[in-house]
């Protein structure tokens, strides 16, 4: 999951994250995500329901794009070091859209002795239409040691 984390150069303000390019969204993607996420809203999987709601076809779950965004983030930090995530869903994602997640470091700061990075994120399609804009805060300092401690404390 964490792709060559240790081999990456340290994050500094202005660092661009390596973009995450996804396969085009298919009906199967949406059916599987409906099951995985528990979001069974028919507007994502039933074309008749989507048409009944005034759309031409089913639309992707906003949370699918946010999950992809989080996948970009966890390429740079283990899931337990993701302090916060925020997304604004800007446009509908359609069948066949080829999504790319991009991001850059906009701030490095410290909270309670932990070095953290603020990431500005976006998910765009092949025509550069922005589907989602977001932010994430990740902890940078010794996440492995802290996580081991937190886990040990619960057992």
């Amino acid at each position, binding site marked *: 999951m964490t792709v060559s984390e240790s081999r990456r150069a340290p994050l500094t303000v202005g660092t661009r994250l390596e973009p995450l390019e996804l396969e085009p969204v298919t009906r199967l993607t949406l059916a599987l995500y409906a099951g995985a*996420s528990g979001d069974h809203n028919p507007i994502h999987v039933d074309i008749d329901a989507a048409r009944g709601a005034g759309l031409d076809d089913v639309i992707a779950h906003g949370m699918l794009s946010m999950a992809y965004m*989080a996948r970009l983030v966890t390429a740079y930090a283990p899931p337990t070091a993701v302090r916060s995530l*925020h997304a604004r869903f800007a446009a509908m994602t359609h069948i066949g859209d080829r999504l790319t997640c991009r991001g850059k470091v906009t701030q490095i700061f410290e909270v309670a002795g932990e070095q953290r990075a603020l990431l500005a994120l976006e998910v765009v399609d092949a025509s550069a239409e922005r589907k989602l804009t977001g932010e994430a805060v990740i902890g940078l300092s010794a996440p492995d040691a802290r996580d081991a401690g937190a886990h040990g404390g619960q057992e």
Partner: protein
Amino acid sequence: MPPTFLFCLEMEQPDPWEHFKHIGVDVLSVLHGEQSFSHHAPAWAGDRLHFVVRVADLYEKKQGALEFVTMETRVTNQDQVHVADLRSVVIVRNA
């Protein structure tokens, strides 16, 4: 745990859209506007998580054509540790 997974667990109730049905909102007219996660402590396999959801804000735009509902969810574990806060903004399209 994937960073957005608490949203999925929140949907794992018998009918996650029940509160919309109660107030006469068709789930097909609902769009997701924003979503936030603040993680305070990790959740692990075997934890028993408790979700408390409240409607934090409600306002309309375009003479009621669009209604915005902000919901906040506080997640705690079996030891009353505050695991996370979720915030959702959903948009109801009133035709």
